[in-house]
């Protein structure tokens, strides 16, 4: 069994809204192994973002544990949490959240501020990452001169800057048209296969969720018992499920038999 990167134990989150208690998460137990590409699916309001915020140390659970790389982050004091956010977690947001006054490469360098890397090292790393997401030509462009898809690619590159243990993506395709959305999902899949990046995506779009290797279902703050395997699993082996012949990680259709992967 591969090592666990992330694990939650009996995760509960209760909000108080005007004297009324709202249970956003209830007894959530999930396990993410190294190299996993998991999608968490569910309708809006089911607690997907709340869960992701717990996983990314942006919020604390009411009960339960979040164990990231063997450390229970719910016990880490707020003062030191920034280190976990910086080095262990990479965030990708629905609205990209790039700094409008920084160009693409500066945005990617941003999480490396305050690390031991020199300016040259940061620039080199940022350049590598932009190449990885296919934006080598756009280094000097500011967000407003990039398309939505390109902005999300920059955001993904930024999430990878400090080589995190896990990338958490909150509806990464939510603000993109269908075609671009698939491109982003495929990019995440490619990173997962090529770089071995562990990825957790939350989405309400079942088609895109199906590209992950594992699909979890969240409903009313609870993880449903059934868990599905996504098509990504097949790609990981790089074999067409229909004809059994070799495929490439970013193929949508089998180049041999032409069937949808």
């Amino acid at each position, binding site marked *: 069994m591969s090592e666990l990167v992330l694990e939650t134990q009996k995760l509960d989150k209760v909000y108080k809204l005007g004297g009324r208690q709202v249970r956003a998460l209830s007894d959530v137990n999930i396990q993410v192994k190294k190299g996993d590409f998991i999608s968490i699916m569910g309708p809006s309001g089911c607690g997907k973002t709340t869960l992701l915020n717990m996983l990314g140390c942006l919020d604390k659970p009411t009960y339960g544990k979040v164990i990231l790389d063997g450390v229970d982050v719910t016990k880490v004091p707020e003062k030191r949490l920034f280190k976990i*956010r910086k080095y262990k977690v990479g965030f990708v947001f629905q609205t990209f959240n790039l700094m409008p006054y920084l160009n693409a490469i500066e945005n990617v360098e941003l*999480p490396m501020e305050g690390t031991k890397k020199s300016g040259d090292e940061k620039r080199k790393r940022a350049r590598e990452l932009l190449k990885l997401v296919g934006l080598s030509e756009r280094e000097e462009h500011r967000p407003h001169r990039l398309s939505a898809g390109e902005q999300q690619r920059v955001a993904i590159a930024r999430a990878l800057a400090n080589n995190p243990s896990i990338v958490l993506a909150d509806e990464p395709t939510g603000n993109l048209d269908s075609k671009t959305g698939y491109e982003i999902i495929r990019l995440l899949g490619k990173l997962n296969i090529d770089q071995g990046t562990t990825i957790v995506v939350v989405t309400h779009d079942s088609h895109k969720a199906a590209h992950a290797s594992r699909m979890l279902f969240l409903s009313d703050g609870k993880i449903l018992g059934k868990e599905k395997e996504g098509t990504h699993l097949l790609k990981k082996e790089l074999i067409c499920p229909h004809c059994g012949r070799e495929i490439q990680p970013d193929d949508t259709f089998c180049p041999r038999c032409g069937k949808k992967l």
Partner: protein
Amino acid sequence: MAIMISIPAGTVANQEAAQRLTENYNTAITTTTTLIEVSASSGRGMFSSTPSGAPPSMPSAGFGQEEVFINEAVGDEIRTIEGVKDVVPFLEKSSDETTSETISTPRGSFSISRPLYTITGVCLNSMFISDYSILPTNITAGRKLLEGDSGVVLMSLNLSEYYGVGVEGEVKIYEEYFTVVGIYDSTAQGFMGARTVYMNITDAQTVTGQVGNVSRFDVYAEDVSYVDSIADVIKAAYSDLYVTTYEDRLANLQTALNNAESTLAQTQATATQEIVIAVVATSLIVLFVMLYTVRERTREIGILKAIGFSNWNIMSQFMLEGILISLIAGVVGVAIGSVGASFLSSVLLPHISLFSGSSGRFQPSFGSTNPGTIGSETTSVALSPELMLLAFGVAVLLGALGSLYPAWRASRTSPMEALRYE
């Protein structure tokens, strides 16, 4: 910020003015203590003022006060008093001609009617000239008056400019023509000494129609110990004359100095008050601007925290921003301040005027020590490098102070809440 900077400038200027005043007085006080002034009038009147626009109500002759004369024979009698060393007569009379001038002050404009010139007839005894400095010493052209001079005058620079005459030129004084033999610099003498024409006392008596009359005597005692007794004798014999000794003059000067000091203290209190208000206002402005900025950028703070910025990173960023803005404001403020400080000070700070109280009538000791100049001291602003540095320092300090709380608040923002913020 600019106003804030110009106010300390004004305060410094006031301190300088106070220092100058004190120096003037000190020099004045150290002059002869053996002099007793005997005069027919209580002191030189200054001028009467009328609000701008109203016609000058002053009679053309006289200087706001009737000029009274003493028979010069009184001098001979005084000379016989025990302990009297010398009696020096003077005849002072203002011209019938007047000029009208407008003086702008922070309290409004005043129309002032003043005589075109004042004649001072002096006894041209060579010993008096050398020992008692009865004539101006700062001659800019020609020579001063000498014993035996007649039909000649020594006039002030601005008067010579007014008439357009130089040395050897002719000037008409009271219907008679005189030759100018010398011109003295009157610029340091301020308002009063500016238009005096010096001539032989007998010429003055003739031309003004006051033959046998003088306006005052300067009585010199053999020794300081005689001063009081001489003064008593004169007071007893001539009840209508005004007798002032060194002590009287000192008291007058002290009163004037006290007045000046209280004016300065008031000005400084006002300035201090204004500084405090400016400092508080500036801090509040920085505080609110930075609070607004923090609110505007809540989402950005959320993003930065989500990607691993520490509270300290965020706090220092906002602090730095506040300080930077204040620094830029400081540069702009000093720039505006250096241009506008003199203008602002003339509007904001009252002029220090000593036109009242003491007659300020001292045996004229010419040059910068003439008490007459005290009356014309005005506050001016000197923007020194130290002051600019201080203003800079204050600006940075206020920037830091004002952004402390907003920066702290920014650093405490919950990243999740911040990311949800629209």
